[in-house]
């Protein structure tokens, strides 16, 4: 078996610690690790880092953000529904025009009623 250099072995150690190497590479890397103390220490560092990544806590989404997302979703769904259905869109525009008209009349209507 061909003896590997440290420079060749080190980039493969992450996959080695994740058990992703095939049998041939595995044997070559293990043979190198048996004889090289530096790479063995390097492997310990790599394994600690991998382990650390796997145990990083998952951040939970804040409740306020969840609510904001629900509101946005609801708003976007309404917009899409209006776009998909021209009749709905026309009715929506009519209601908007009516509301604007009532708002316009309010300053005159209230004094008129006494």
């Amino acid at each position: 078996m061909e003896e590997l250099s440290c420079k060749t072995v080190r980039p493969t150690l992450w996959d080695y610690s994740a058990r992703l190497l095939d049998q041939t590479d595995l044997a070559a890397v293990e043979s190198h690790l048996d004889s090289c103390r530096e790479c063995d220490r390097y492997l310990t560092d790599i394994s600690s880092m991998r382990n650390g990544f796997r145990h990083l806590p998952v951040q939970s989404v804040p409740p306020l953000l969840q609510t904001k997302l629900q509101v946005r979703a609801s708003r976007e769904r309404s917009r899409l529904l209006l776009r998909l259905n021209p009749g709905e869109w026309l009715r929506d525009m009519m209601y908007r025009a009516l509301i604007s008209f009532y708002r316009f009349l309010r300053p005159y209507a209230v004094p008129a009623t006494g």
Partner: protein
Amino acid sequence: MFEVPVADYSLNLNAQLTSEQQANLEDQALISALQRAEPGAYETLIRRFQTPVYNLAWRLLDNPADAGDVVQEVFLKVFRNVDHFRGDSSLRTWIYRIAVNESHNKRRWLFRHRKGETGIDDAFPSEDNREAPLVDSSESPFDFTMNREAQLLLEEGLAAISPAFRTALVLREIEELSYEEIAHVLEISLGTVKSRIVRGREALRYYLANRLNPAGAVGIPGPVKWAPEAEHAK
């Protein structure tokens, strides 16, 4: 309390389908439901992706408030552009691509606008901390403290390395995307993805070794700087 209806888009058509094929079918069902504005489809999308997108943005920006802004922008873009989604990549890859781009935009914005700012948030306990429930951890207090220290150190290391390396590392090691998926998300070649991951791991290892043993990081190669020109020259 009012419960938002959540539609179930999981399919049980054929037990022989691989998990990847099944995921693709579920994605397609969800996308067409979104395009038809079906009730429950938006909530399903949010429930499925809010935590991964929030965590991705949180790790890329290292600030919960900014991550929250990015998550809102990401979902808004997804809702508005789902019509144009052609299915060239998986739904997850597409959403992650938007999240990475939005996070980069946010970071650029913060770099320009928050240069001279000094935060006062650290002086007060955050709302999250006040609301954090007490958890009965099965670890001993010593193990808990040691693990927490290690996590903080790793988070600190991730925040310290170049953003290009950090993004690739987070997608690979935390989000567990394949190299091909990362290439799609970042819109770079497979070789560049592998190179960034290897160099990112090395930069992180160097950082951690220096933090743990500042006096004698002997024989450890120096930190790798990200040089976009060098990558394009390959």
